[in-house]
């Protein structure tokens, strides 16, 4: 059984590309979510996730907000979260890690190396 990944990204194209990359090149079972709200609903479901990839800039509930709700609502408190962001400065990286994420992936990412990068961050 391949590990389950929740991919939260509002841009349809990017979500589709990341899904393909992670499923075909990596060995993930990817559950896509188009918003923070959708992500929270998916996390509240019965089947647990092994990791969450969370876009930072989203309309409505953004990445950090979604993470905060996850932790508050005790939704999957142990699941490692990796942020996806177009801002790549060291300050921003520090800030995101301090929110409780275990890693940050820069956008635009290369779909050919994305699974490898995620694997490295998760230490699998």
């Amino acid at each position, binding site marked *: 059984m391949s590990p389950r990944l929740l991919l939260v990204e509002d*841009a349809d*194209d*990017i979500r589709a*590309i990341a899904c*393909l*990359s992670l499923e*075909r*090149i990596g060995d993930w079972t990817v559950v896509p979510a188009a918003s923070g709200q959708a992500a929270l609903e998916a996390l509240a479901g019965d089947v647990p996730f092994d990791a969450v990839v969370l876009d930072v800039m989203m309309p409505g509930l953004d990445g950090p907000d979604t993470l905060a709700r996850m932790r508050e609502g005790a939704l999957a408190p142990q699941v490692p979260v990796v942020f996806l962001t177009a801002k790549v*400065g*060291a300050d921003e990286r520090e800030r995101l890690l301090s929110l409780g994420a275990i890693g940050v992936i820069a*956008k*635009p*990412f*290369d*779909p*050919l190396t994305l699974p490898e990068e995620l694997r490295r961050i998760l230490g699998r």
Partner: protein
Amino acid sequence: MAAILPAQSDLVRAPGGAPGPAGLKRPEFARPPDADAARTRNAAVALGAFVLLYLSWQLTGWIPGSKENVGDLLILPIDAVAVYAAWSASRRCIGSSRLRSFWRLMAFALAAETIGDLVQAVYDIGLHHSPYPSLADPFYLAFYPLLLLALLTVTTRTKLLKPTLDGATIVVGGGAVVWYLVLGPTVEQNHNPLTMGVSMAFPLGDLFLLAGLAAMLLRPGPIAFRAPLKLITVAVLLGIGADVLYGYGQLHGTYRAGDWIDTLYVLEFAAFALAGFSQRLVRHGDPDAEGDDTAQSRSRASWLPYLSLAIGLGVLLGVEWGTRFFPTVSLVLIVIVLAVLVAARQYVAQRELVQAQAALRESERMKDEFLSTVGHELRTPLTSIRGSLGLLEAGVLGELPEDATNMVSVAVLNADRLVRLIGDILDIERMAAGGLLLEPVAVDATELVGQSLQVLRASADAAGVRLREDVAPIRVMADADRIVQVLVNLLGNAVKFSPPGGVVTVTVERKNRCAIFSVWDTGRGIPADRLEKIFERFRQVDASDAREKGGTGLGLPIARGIVERHGGRVWAESRVGVGSTFRFTLPVAVADLEPVRGGVA
């Protein structure tokens, strides 16, 4: 149909010369392009010769006859030539109603003066009796309103405050002089009303001409009027000066016909004549016919108010202070008015400058913002395109037929080019806007060079270029990503411009507190005069490089921007045919500075 068949005989005739084959060819197009210059040159020679003749007579009196009579007669030919010149100029300006009216009015004004001179000659020579005022004076006086109307016709009316202030300064400055020398004394002398009226009409006319001249010079006018404008200015100023001296002489009973002051009138009319001949042909639809010569008029006339101020004050202060014609109070008032006018003008000019600078900064900012927005808007879809193509090319979605793989490769290659170009444009704009943030930390030079060579390895292999490194173990203060970007840029160029079998070498050495990074190639080299220019935006040594080598022309300016923001310097050395070396410096990390002084850490 005059508009369609304009003044053909005039178009092919030299200034005073033989008629050409009018109407046989199409004269407008038969005319050589430098006909205007040739006509002006011929006229200048002829008029100069006449002026010399006149001057030689003034100095030696070699022409027999009384000074009055010869003087009266000698002024007539130059009068007639000036009238002819203005009239022919009006016929050359078929494409501009404004210029045509100007030259017609000029011709009428000059004709009025000519008739005045003719009547005066009849009095002096024929009747041996010169009354004042005489029948010549109505003609002389008609000259002023006609000329003033001409001066006001030729330029465009504007509501600009600066020209108005300048004009006011000139008129007050000049008016003070005219009042002091001529008008005031005339009023004082209390002749009979007719004499006084006529005597005052001349200097008043001059004052109006001065205002008209200021209006003409300070307002924008047709570009086709550039050459005559200067000569008209000289002529009007000569005329005003001559009139003031003439009025002064008349007042004190020292002026006589044929006086040396007449030389100024001769020069005035020679200048009017030359102005007429220098008017270039203006055809229908000529873009310069009505175009506003704004920049010209502003810059060329900015000294005029100061000149008039200097002349006015010089004359007023140079002569006796507080004479009966010019009480001290009015003198002080004039000076105050002039000072206020000049101060106001300075203020307006300064404000215009500040506004122009603000507008420029704003448009720069909007351009940067626009480029940045467009860049980001382009990058988002392009990222998706590149990502999808990458997955296709890698066969992640299944093996593609060979033709399809080739096509996808072409698409990938070009998507990468676009990504690089957009990235470069965004970098350049970020630097221009001062928004490129760096995070320098102590890093190993070997690490930086290693990463960069890694990136370039594939393309160097493809080009058959060997990569070598000789890097001293130095730690530098650098934003690693950005310095790798610089090195990749320089190495990429070196590989691109190296022939197959060439060698590209990276060296890092230490010099005092700096690390010097050098990228050596064995390419064709760069001419010495281009070594600096290539670091400017959008420059390449050869324009065709952009197409052939696929560069954006932005790599080196970006490299310079990044290095300079690290406190370093970037430059190029080259020998054509041997190769080029691109070097940049970075500060050595502070911790590494100690061992140098202390020997062993």
